[in-house]
């Protein structure tokens, strides 16, 4: 069975998107771009060119290149190419065919159905023509939906509450401008009013920058760049780039070296453009947005304050002046998060998914709202399942003991985002007992977390030597309210720095502790193999570290650790082969966490690697 996509068939650009496992993805075309120019060219050699390629040859082939065919949809307009008449829907179909083809190659699956969007003001004839275009392209058109409706769908506004919602969609594209007011009730969308300006778009803003550059340059150098095709092309690119940059920064530099030449030599263009100057140059364009805006609200029988949601569509709505205008006029913060160039196609994909029944409640998978893990050495929390992991899922990790001959480990199951165990929520505790006596670091205890689709967590601990295992089942973890969860997440963010410090502290102490243990073992087992004053040096450094450990000065512990490491290094290197694996790890940097709790005989796991290589903890 083929896939269903959502298509924003635009006047200047088109976008295609698909819902995969409930999430919308915008599909890049064969050239790697996420938008495809809605331009079709019939080359003299009989090839049909679509998109960027058609645009590039337009000037050489103006009679056989069609732009903005959307403006002719539903009319009797035709174009003659090689004695064949083409209707608008046939030309549009070429664009749709390319989108279909590129989507198929991207998805690795057939695409045979689509939801296509049209402007809210399109009449029956225009909608029918759009549907025909889809059919000619080999697509079953599941539905034709309004562009503003698609934009609202992309943000899931139809799910927002039970009461009727009023949504204002502000769509400023490359060459057209629309404002629509929608009413949503019971998941049904109704366009209450729509107004616009079919000859106002982002290109007008670019043109203002170009005009300004040409004028400045003329005043200073007496040369009219507007007459020079190549210079103009470079100005066009630079103008658009400057506009885009000024949405982010307050000032940008337009630098076009060797823009032209006079008898006196080459001339360079180098100007600074500030955001305020840019806004001054384009303020009348912003003003032109106001009237359709006011009319749409008036026609809908509303006042500005009665708008519940504002959605922005089109790349030009990224301009701060536009954002401010909309914010000021509606008093509402526009929705953010979906790329305004893609929001219509995304909404169409959502609609396609709904119509195909792909998003069924039965398979809507949940995520874990908070991370889950266990307490490890130093009072830290080691996370096994990160927050926002889709469930059901199962993860396991191998831990070890922190003391020689430790008879049992306590598994303290935690939920939360803080680095330190004490600040997270305890979900349960259990003990794995009767561990056979073994030096610390040797036992391998596999802890696994298994969350089923209902959010029930099974935690299990197994000693890999004896296969003895035990575990608990935790049911209440999802009973936290959304507010509790938000609070815990925010809390973790607020304490991130402090937690990081504590974690580092715990790590430094754990490292020191491991090194002391290993050095003592080395002295005991290999004491007779020391040469010269090696032993005295190591013992001295060991005492120093132990002293530092009892204090609070972290830097002192760190430097004492390093000193001990250095002083024992040459010796342990020599002994490397004979020395036990534990001995070797003295030189091995980072050692990971494990927990000490108040009980002495408890826990304390250090993570060991899968292959049991204790050097790399």
């Amino acid at each position, binding site marked *: 069975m083929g896939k269903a996509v959502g298509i924003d068939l635009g006047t200047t650009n088109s976008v295609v998107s698909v819902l*995969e*496992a409930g999430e919308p993805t915008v599909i890049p075309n064969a*050239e*790697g771009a996420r938008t495809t120019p809605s331009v079709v*060219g019939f*080359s*003299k*050699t009989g090839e049909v*060119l679509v998109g960027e*390629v*058609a645009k*590039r*040859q*337009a*000037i*050489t082939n103006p009679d056989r290149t069609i732009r903005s065919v959307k403006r002719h949809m539903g009319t009797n307009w035709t174009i003659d190419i090689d004695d064949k008449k083409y209707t608008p829907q046939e030309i549009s179909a070429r664009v749709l065919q390319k989108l279909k083809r590129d989507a198929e190659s*991207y*998805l*690795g*699956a057939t695409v045979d159905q689509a939801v296509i969007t049209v402007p809210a003001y399109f009449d029956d004839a225009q909608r029918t023509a759009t549907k025909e275009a889809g059919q000619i392209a080999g697509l079953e058109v599941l539905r034709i939906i309004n562009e503003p409706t698609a934009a609202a769908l992309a943000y899931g506004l139809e799910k927002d509450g039970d009461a009727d919602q009023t949504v204002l969609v502000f769509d400023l594209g490359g060459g057209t401008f629309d404002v629509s007011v929608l009413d949503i009730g019971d998941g049904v969308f109704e366009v209450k009013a729509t107004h616009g300006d079919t000859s106002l778009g982002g290109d007008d803003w670019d043109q203002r920058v170009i005009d300004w550059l040409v004028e400045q340059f003329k005043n200073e150098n007496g040369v009219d760049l507007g007459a020079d*095709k*190549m210079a103009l*092309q*470079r100005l066009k690119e630079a103008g658009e780039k400057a506009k885009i940059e000024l949405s982010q920064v307050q000032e940008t530099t337009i630098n076009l*070296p*060797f823009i032209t*030449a006079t008898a006196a*030599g*080459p001339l360079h263009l180098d100007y600074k453009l500030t955001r305020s100057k840019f806004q001054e140059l384009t303020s009348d364009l912003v003003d032109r947005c106001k009237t359709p805006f006011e009319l749409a609200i008036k026609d809908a029988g509303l006042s500005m304050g009665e708008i519940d949601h504002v959605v922005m569509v089109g790349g030009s709505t990224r301009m701060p002046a536009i954002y401010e205008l909309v914010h000021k006029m509606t008093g509402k913060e526009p929705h953010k998060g979906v790329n305004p160039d893609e929001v219509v196609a995304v909404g169409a994909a959502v609609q396609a998914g709904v119509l195909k029944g*792909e998003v*069924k409640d*039965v*398979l809507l*998978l949940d995520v874990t709202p908070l991370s889950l893990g266990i307490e490890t050495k130093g009072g830290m929390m*080691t*996370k*096994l399942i990160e927050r926002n992991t889709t469930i*059901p*899922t*199962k*993860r*396991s*990790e*191998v831990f070890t003991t922190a003391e020689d001959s430790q008879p049992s480990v306590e598994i303290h199951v935690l939920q939360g985002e803080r680095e330190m165990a004490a600040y997270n929520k305890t979900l349960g505790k259990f003990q794995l007992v009767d561990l056979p006596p073994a030096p610390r670091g040797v036992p391998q205890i*596999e802890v696994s977390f298994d969350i*089923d*689709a209902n959010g029930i967590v099974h935690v299990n601990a197994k000693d890999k030597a004896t296969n003895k295992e035990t575990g608990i089942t935790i049911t209440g973890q999802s009973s936290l309210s959304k507010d509790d969860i938000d609070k815990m997440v925010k809390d973790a963010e607020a304490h991130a720095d402090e937690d990081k410090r504590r974690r580092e502290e715990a790590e430094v102490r754990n490292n020191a502790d491991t090194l002391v243990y290993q050095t003592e073992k080395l002295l005991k087992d290999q004491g007779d193999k020391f040469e010269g004053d090696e032993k005295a040096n190591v013992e001295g450094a060991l005492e120093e570290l132990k002293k530092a450990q009892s204090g609070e000065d972290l830097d002192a512990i760190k430097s004492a650790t390093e000193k001990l490491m250095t002083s024992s290094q040459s010796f342990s290197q020599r002994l490397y082969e004979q020395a036990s694996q534990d001995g070797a790890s003295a030189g091995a940097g980072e050692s*990971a*966490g494990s927990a000490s709790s108040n009980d002495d005989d408890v826990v304390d796991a250090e*993570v060991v*690697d*899968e292959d049991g290589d204790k050097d790399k*903890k």
Partner: protein
Amino acid sequence: MSPENRQENEAPDSSAEEQGQDAQPTNAGEDPALVAANAERDQFKSALQHLQADFENYRKRVIKQQADDVARANEALVQKVLPVLDTIDLAIAHEPSKSLEQVSTALLDVLSKEGLERIPSVDAQFDPNEHEAVAHEPGDGESPAKVSEEMRAGYRWKGRVLRPAMVKVIG
């Protein structure tokens, strides 16, 4: 610490709930609860198959994209270097200079070893896949359109057009 070790993801459980009362018996004599359960099982199976297929395709695509990204690494940086190459070209065009040409050759040498190619344009047949026409002059109407002048060089990066050449076309 590497929590990725031994990680396992399990497919969702398709344990269906009992929903006997909603059943529409298709065959007289069949247990409606059984019919409903079967229908529900088929529905789950189909949903699972779709999800599995989506995931497989997604996985393949991600692998391909990662390989692409690695192969085309540095593209963004090279893109930013293009205006520098343009400036050198323009400077040489305005005033031929041996030393500047050496700079240009050296820089292009390095970049071409990494995968940058200059797109041939002047006198080549016009190809909108690689050439962007910004000016046009009618030809004799017979021969195919050709590039008569290069206004700005175009480049390929690892075989793909990074920026088309900006050209004047005749014909």
